[in-house]
Structures are given as structure tokens and as C-alpha cells.
């Protein structure tokens, strides 16, 4: 119950931020915002003991019974880890941003977006219902879009925001399709219920399709190959955002999704291979590309891609345990999952700290280009220490937490050799090799961060502001993370026992005694292969770093120029060209053409259906006799409509059109429908006023000189549209296919407490329709307003090209 409400707290506070910001238009607004994640963190942390005992909490708000969509929150070990990361890193990032962002920035907007993201991300990890999960998932994409484009006057920011949005939302929609397929198989949107019944459906064709689509969603979000191209461009966002969304939380949503769906899809060969291969390849590609970056933030972006690939490949390996059940082999897989979650936490600590360090460099010195930095150790001792801790942890060196999870990663990859699994055969030996090579590159770029920035010669002329240490406030958040990096190394089992074990249990609900397979984390394993691999990484890494200038040439070799970014840009350009050429083809600018399209379509489709089905049977026997006054009204309407065609001025035409409308209102009165009559009369009045307003802008009404054939076609279309409507009305009246539903509404007074049935339908029985109609009306109103008020004047600059 409290958990469900906790998700909405960030959204609620976000509503009030603009009002508070009006009162406190300076950086102090950040302190208000900081309270939210801190409280959420404490609240979630209070659940650690109960979750560690293996208890899970579930709470449901009933929502839409008929569609099976309910607001269900589910707290287990897996979601708790993510929840703690979101609120914990969120607190530190907000603390950091208070000092990072200048007071001239639109701080109110920034914190609204950030809170929006926080709420959405909590929603993703705590939702059990797939539809709700999907909505929150897309909300994270949207808030990420808004945050990347925070400095929207920059062209690159807009480009990066659009790119990330297009790629992640494409994946999200694929994922939605996957969820719908799963639901059509199992009949439920609940993840937990799906896990229980999925075994009966694994043979179905839709199962594989659903799996691929869910994977598409996860890979796009977690920047896995070939969708990783959006992450480097997303670095245009302010650094606190990059630290939060694009390294610690949002990009891990894909990993969460894969972990959450492992009990459903985990037994499948394709799932195992897709995740392992994509993950390990992304690991290599990311680390390989990171080395050549000169912008420190871009380097960290590629490094994030690579580390996400590492975690992904481990989770993929771990999924095999679902297929194996309780066996000795399963222990290997369970340990892989354990390592994945451990590295996930570690990555958030060291990468968060490194992003903040780069943010400090950028903020204090005005550049983050490694070619312009150097020799900063003496000027920025604290920043240097944090950078050292973070980088060495990333490189997998002791005594930092990255060493522990990196060793576990090597062990997991090594265990793939000679494993009898999914006809893997000798191919299993490739995995540890790639992992090892990628780790060497990881070592190299970690060294670049430390040595090229803080050692070497200092060139004051290359940086924009003289080198100096950052303000203490800015150093708090990265220092806390650095403390965690070392703390986790010395007390790894604290995290292991209280957070990671329950999470592994949450990942394998079908395995009963999964905790017994996980050994305690130890720093010293003896001289095993994994340790030798690490030693090899260090030796080769040092050599490669030393000789960096001599082998850097391979990055500019011919095959490297063929990259995915150019493909993306080309595809975007081609799509835009294609779309605009199609639009130009039929958007002629003549109202007549549009009316022709609409009515021709109507005539062909509706008339065609009537024709092919032979539904022209018209039965008039049940119809009421037509009274004299009804004849009069009808003849008036006929006269008015024929007169419109021959009207000489626009005013006459509008008034004649009004005659039609009021006559219909009178018809409603005759048929005793006072509600409809009232509505019709008022609508008619308001539209006439609107007509008269638009009237002002229209040119002179001239007699149109159209060629005879065009007139003939116009007449034909008009007459056939009229005939079809008449035929439909008569046929629908004559052939009753279903029982009337109106009986249900006759109890309106008992059911809804109203004597007016029309209104009980509008406000109660079909209130959902009315609500959405109101929303549509509002959107239309805003649309008219923006189209008219915000259009660029002739002399104004185009906002796009700033």
C-alpha cells in the first residue's frame, strides 16, 4: 500500500515544484527536491530486513477489471535493489546538481523532469502489471528526452534527445507488442501469474515472437549492440543527468527487464544465446571504442555501454538455470546472476563517481577534452583521489569493489568452457577470450582517465579557467560513492547477504533452494585462472597504454568508418524525404480534393461492404408512420440544403446551414429527445458564431467556374454518399441483429441515482468515454491555440536553426 503511494510521491512533488520555484528562484530549490529521494531511500531501506528474510510484499489497486489492468506493486529482492539504486543515486545526484547547475538555468524545469524520471523509474521496477510497467517505461524515455534536451538551444542536444527518443521508444513499442502477445497466450498481464502458467505455452509460435520483442525493448533501453548509438549522443545532457539516467538507472532498466522476465523466457535456447552474444559483443565494442575518445564524457559513455554488455551477458548466462532446474550445473548459472547483480551495484558506484568527477572538471576548468587536460593532481587532490578510486575499480583492481565482481565475471565466463548446454560445444571457449580482450581495453581507458588528466604536464593556456579544486559541496556526492567503492570491497557480504541473495531468489522463483548455491564473496581465491587473467589484463593493459600512440592508427583504418551512426542518419533522412514526398503527393491544398478523398473512401468501403454482403434488405414494416409535421420539417430541410448550392453569398449559405441544424433540433423535439434537442440548439448557436468569426478571414465568394466533368464527379460523389447514409439508416432500422441494450439503462435510478437516463449514461455507465472525450476536446482547444498563437511571423527567425 505505502509502496504504491511511494511511486506517486515524486510525481506529486513535481506538480508543486513550479510554484515553489516562483517563491525560491535560486539553487535552494534543490534542497526541497533532495528531501524526496532521501525519504524514499530510507523508506525502501526499512524493507531490507524483511526482504532479506525472503518475504515479498504485494499490493493491488483494482483499476480496469475488463482489461485485466491493475495497479499492482510487487516488492522483492530484485526490485528492492533497483529501488535503492534509484533513490540512493538520485539523492546524491540531486545534492551534486545543487552545486553543479548555475542559478541562471531553468532549475524549476530541471527538477520537475528529474522527479518525473524518478517516479517513472520506480514505477518500472515495482510494477507487476505489464501494461503499467510499459507506461512507466515509456515515461522514462520521455523524461530522458526532456533532460537530454535541457539545453535545447544547442543543436547537438536536440539531435541527441531525438535519437535516444526514437531508438528507445521504438524498442518500447516492440515490447508492448510482446506483452500483448504474452497476454493473448496466458490471459493475464501480471508478471507473477505469467511465470506460474508459462510452461504450458512455451511451444506456441507467439512465444518466440513475444520473447524477441521483449528483448528488443531491453536492448534498446540498455544500449546494447546495435542500438548503443544513442548513448554517446545522450551525453549532451547536463552531467548530473548523465550520471543518474545514462549510467546508474535508466540504462539498467533493460537489465531489470531481462532479469524480471528470466523466469518466463529463461528456459529457451534463443534467449540464452541472444543475450549472451549481444552482451559480450557489446562489452568488447564499447571498451574498444572508448579508448579512442578524447572527450571524457564520451569515453565514459562507451565505457557504460561496455559495462552494460558485461552485466547483460552474465544475466544471459544465468538464465540457463531456469532450464536446468536444481542441478550441480545450475550453481554456475546462479553464481553468474549473482555476479551480474553485484557488478550492477558496483558499476553504479564507480561510474556515478567518475561522471561526477568529469562534471567537476568540466565545471571548474571549462573543458573535458583529455588533450587539453593534464597535471591536475596538484591542483585538484580530492577530485584526483576520487577519479583514481573510480577508475581503478572500473579496471578491476584491488582494493576496490570492481575487482570482486570482475573476478566473478571471469569465473563465470571460464565455466562456459566444455559445458554441455544448448549444444554450445567448443564455442564456449570464445566467451572468456572476448571477455579478457575487452577487459584489457577497459584497463587502458581507465588509465587514460587517471593519467592523461591528472598526471603529465600542466598547460594552463589550454584550459579556460585556472585550475583549482571544486567547492566542497560538489565533492560530497562523489566522495560518498568513493567510500562505497572501498567499503564494498572490504565488506562485500553485507551487500551480498542482505541485497543480492534475496534478489537472486526473486530471479528464480521456481528454484526452491537457490540461496544454498551462492558462496560467500571472498577477496582471495588463491591463484586460480581468473586471477591469472586479471594479472594478464594488468600486464598487457600497461603495455598497450604505454604504446597507445603506435597502435591508435587502427581506429582510422578503412573498416572503422562504416559505422551505425551514418546508417541511422541516412535512414532518418530517407524516412523524412519519403514521408514528405508522399504527403506532397496528396496534400494539394484544395478543400475539394480532401472532401473527394474522404467521401470516395467512405463510399468504397461502406458501400463495398454492403454490396459484397448483400445487406440491402430493407424492412419498413416496423417503422412508425410519418406524421404531417414531420413531413413539413423534412421538406424545409430539403429545401434549405438544395438552396445552399445556389446561394449567391457566403452569409446566405451559413444561414441556410443553420436552418438545417435547427430543423434537426426540432426533429429531436418531435421524437421526444429533449437532451439532444438542447445540445443541438446550443451547438448550432455556438458554431454559427464561430463561422461568423472565420468568415472575416475568408476571401470573396466567387462563383466557381469548374469544367463539366469535374462537376459531374462532384455530383456523383455527393449523391452516392447521401444514398449510402440513407440505406444504412434504413437497413439498420429494419434488421435487428442483437437484443437491445437499453433495458440495462432503464434501472438507471437504482444503479446511478439519476432519473435522466441520457445523463447517467454520460456521467456514470459510460463515464470513461465522456472522460476521454473531454480530454480530446481539451487537446483540440490547445491545438487551435498553439497553431494560431505560436506560429512564426514572417519576419521572425526560425527557432530550429539557433
Amino acid at each position: 500500500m505505502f509502496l504504491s503511494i511511494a511511486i506517486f510521491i515524486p510525481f506529486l512533488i513535481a506538480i508543486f515544484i513550479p510554484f515553489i520555484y516562483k517563491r525560491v528562484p535560486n539553487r535552494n530549490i534543490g534542497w526541497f527536491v533532495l528531501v524526496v529521494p532521501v525519504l524514499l531511500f530510507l523508506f525502501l531501506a526499512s524493507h531490507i530486513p524483511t526482504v532479506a528474510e525472503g518475504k515479498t510484499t504485494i499490493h493491488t489497486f483494482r483499476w480496469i477489471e475488463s482489461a485485466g489492468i491493475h495497479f499492482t506493486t510487487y516488492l522483492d529482492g530484485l526490485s528492492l535493489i533497483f529501488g535503492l539504486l534509484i533513490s540512493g543515486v538520485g539523492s546524491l545526484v540531486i545534492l551534486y546538481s545543487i552545486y553543479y547547475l548555475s542559478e541562471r538555468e531553468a532549475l524549476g524545469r530541471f527538477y520537475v523532469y528529474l522527479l518525473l524520471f524518478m517516479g517513472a523509474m520506480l514505477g518500472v521496477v515495482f510494477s507487476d502489471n505489464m501494461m503499467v510497467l510499459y507506461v512507466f517505461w515509456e515515461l522514462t524515455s520521455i523524461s530522458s528526452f526532456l533532460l537530454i534536451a535541457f539545453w535545447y538551444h544547442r543543436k547537438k542536444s536536440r539531435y541527441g534527445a531525438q535519437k535516444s527518443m526514437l531508438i528507445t521508444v521504438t524498442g518500447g513499442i516492440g515490447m508492448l507488442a510482446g506483452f500483448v502477445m504474452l497476454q493473448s497466450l496466458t490471459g493475464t498481464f501480471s508478471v507473477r501469474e505469467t511465470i506460474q502458467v508459462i510452461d504450458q505455452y512455451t511451444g506456441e509460435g507467439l512465444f518466440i515472437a513475444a520473447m524477441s520483442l521483449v528483448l528488443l525493448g531491453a536492448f534498446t533501453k540498455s544500449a546494447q549492440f546495435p542500438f548503443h548509438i544513442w548513448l554517446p549522443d545522450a551525453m549532451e545532457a547536463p552531467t548530473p543527468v548523465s550520471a543518474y539516467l545514462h549510467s546508474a538507472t535508466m540504462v539498467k532498466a533493460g537489465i531489470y527487464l531481462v532479469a524480471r522476465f528470466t523466469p518466463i523466457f529463461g528456459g529457451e535456447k534463443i534467449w540464452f544465446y541472444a543475450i549472451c552474444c549481444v552482451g559480450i559483443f557489446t562489452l568488447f565494442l564499447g571498451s574498444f571504442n572508448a579508448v579512442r575518445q578524447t572527450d571524457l564524457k564520451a569515453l565514459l559513455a562507451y565505457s557504460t555501454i561496455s559495462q552494460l554488455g558485461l552485466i547483460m551477458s552474465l544475466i544471459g548466462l544465468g538464465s540457463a538455470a531456469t532450464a536446468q532446474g536444481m542441478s550441480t550445473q545450475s550453481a554456475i548459472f546462479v553464481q553468474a546472476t549473482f555476479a551480474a547483480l553485484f557488478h550492477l551495484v558496483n558499476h553504479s558506484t564507480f561510474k556515478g563517481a567518475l561522471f561526477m568527477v568529469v562534471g567537476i572538471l568540466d565545471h571548474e576548468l571549462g573543458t573535458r577534452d583529455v588533450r587539453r587536460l593534464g597535471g591536475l593532481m596538484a591542483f585538484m587532490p580530492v577530485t584526483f583521489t576520487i577519479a583514481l578510486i573510480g577508475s581503478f575499480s572500473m579496471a578491476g583492481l584491488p582494493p576496490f569493489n570492481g575487482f570482486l565482481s570482475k573476478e566473478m565475471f571471469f569465473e563465470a565466463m571460464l565455466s562456459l568452457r566444455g559445458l554441455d548446454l544448448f549444444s554450445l560445444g567448443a564455442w564456449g571457449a570464445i566467451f572468456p577470450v572476448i571477455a579478457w580482450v575487452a577487459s584489457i581495453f577497459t584497463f587502458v581507458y581507465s588509465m587514460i582517465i587517471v593519467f592523461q588528466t591528472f598526471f603529465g604536464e600542466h598547460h594552463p593556456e589550454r584550459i579556460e579557467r585556472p585550475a583549482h579544486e571544486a567547492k566542497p559541496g560538489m565533492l560530497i556526492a562523489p566522495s560518498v560513492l568513493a567510500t562505497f567503492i572501498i567499503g564494498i570491497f572490504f565488506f562485500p557480504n553485507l551487500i551480498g547477504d542482505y541485497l543480492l541473495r534475496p534478489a537472486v531468489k526473486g530471479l528464480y522463483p521456481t528454484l526452491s533452494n537457490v540461496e544454498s548455491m551462492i558462496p560467500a564473496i571472498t577477496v582471495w581465491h588463491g591463484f586460480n585462472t581468473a586471477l591469472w587473467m586479471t594479472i594478464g589484463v594488468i600486464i598487457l593493459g600497461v603495455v598497450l597504454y604505454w604504446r597507445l600512440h603506435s597502435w591508435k592508427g587502427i581506429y582510422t583504418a578503412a573498416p572503422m568508418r562504416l559505422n551505425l551512426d551514418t546508417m541511422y542518419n541516412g535512414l532518418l533522412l530517407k524516412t523524412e524525404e519519403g514521408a514528405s514526398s508522399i504527403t506532397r503527393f496528396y496534400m494539394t491544398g484544395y478543400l475539394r480534393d480532401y472532401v473527394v478523398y474522404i467521401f470516395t473512401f467512405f463510399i468504397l468501403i461502406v458501400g463495398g461492404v454492403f454490396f459484397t454482403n448483400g445487406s440491402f434488405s430493407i424492412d419498413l414494416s416496423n417503422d412508425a408512420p410519418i406524421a404531417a409535421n414531420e413531413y413539413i420539417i423534412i421538406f424545409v430541410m430539403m429545401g434549405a440544403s438544395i438552396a445552399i448550392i445556389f446561394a449567391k453569398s457566403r452569409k446566405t449559405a451559413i444561414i441556410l446551414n443553420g436552418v438545417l441544424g435547427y430543423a434537426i433540433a426540432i426533429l429531436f423535439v418531435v421524437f421526444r429527445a429533449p437532451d439532444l434537442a438542447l445540445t443541438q440548439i446550443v451547438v448550432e448557436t455556438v458554431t454559427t458564431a464561430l463561422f461568423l468569426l472565420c468568415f472575416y478571414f475568408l476571401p470573396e465568394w466567387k462563383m466557381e467556374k469548374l469544367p463539366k466533368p469535374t462537376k459531374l464527379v462532384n455530383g456523383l460523389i455527393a449523391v452516392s454518399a447521401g444514398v449510402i447514409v440513407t440505406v444504412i439508416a434504413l437497413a439498420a432500422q429494419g434488421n435487428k441483429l442483437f437484443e437491445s441494450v437499453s433495458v440495462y439503462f432503464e434501472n438507471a435510478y437504482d444503479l446511478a441515482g439519476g432519473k435522466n437516463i441520457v445523463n447517467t449514461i454520460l456521467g456514470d455507465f459510460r463515464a470513461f468515454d465522456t472522460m476521454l472525450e473531454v480530454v480530446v476536446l481539451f487537446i483540440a482547444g490547445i491545438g487551435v491555440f498553439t497553431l494560431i498563437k505560436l506560429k512564426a511571423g514572417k519576419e521572425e527567425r526560425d527557432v530550429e536553426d539557433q
Partner: protein
Amino acid sequence: MKINDVILQTVTKIVVFIILTFGVELFLSGHNNPGGGFIGGLVLSSAFVLLYLVYDIETVQKGIPFDFKKIAAIGVLLAVGSGTGSMLFGSEFLTHTFSEFTLPVFGATELGTVVLFEAGVALTVVGVVVTIILSISEDV
């Protein structure tokens, strides 16, 4: 468009109040008699449209200093929010309830939560209609 029609302006001053009263009456009677949020809102907005037609926009805005976009937004929030309220009591989205109350002046009166929903509809209609008409007429 500057019109200066004394008779029309004098009549409008009185008629607007009659229309507004009628709109509120339609809104309130909607539960048991013809009327309701949508019609009530439309009648209210037609009163505003009449004012804008007879006087110029500046004069009316001095008299009714509302931002009609905000009114529309409040309306949508009210309509959607009245639906979520029921979820807090464990019912489904948009479930409405009603009950008899004895009020000091009106005696036994039936009050329903659907009124909130209908009020949202009415406010949205007023806000949107006036916004549309104003934006088009100001675009000269």
C-alpha cells in the same frame, strides 16, 4: 471589430445573466431532468461568446479576468481526478456514488460524486470553446 450598438449592449447586459443562470440551472438539473455538464457548459460559453460579440475583447477581459485555457485545464483535471478518487476507496476507476442528505435549506437532497465529474466536463467545455473562439478572433 469595434461595434457600438447601444440597444444591443443594454439588452446583452441583462440577457447574459439570464443565460448564465439558465446554464447553471441546466447543469444542476442534469441528473434527473434534461441538462447536464456538457449542455450547461455550452450554454455558459455561449453567454461569454455573446459578450465578446457585443463588446470588444479588451472590455470583456477587464470584466472577466479569467484565463480560459486554465479553466479548461482545471476541468480536465477535475474530470479525471474525480475518477481516480474512487480508487482510493478500493473501487474501480470512475466509479461514482450517491446518497441522500438532509440539508438546512433544501431538505432531503440527493448528492452524488458524479457532480464533480460533470463540473469537470462543464468547465472544460467553457474553457475550450472560449479559447478557440478567442484565439481565432484575436488572430487579425
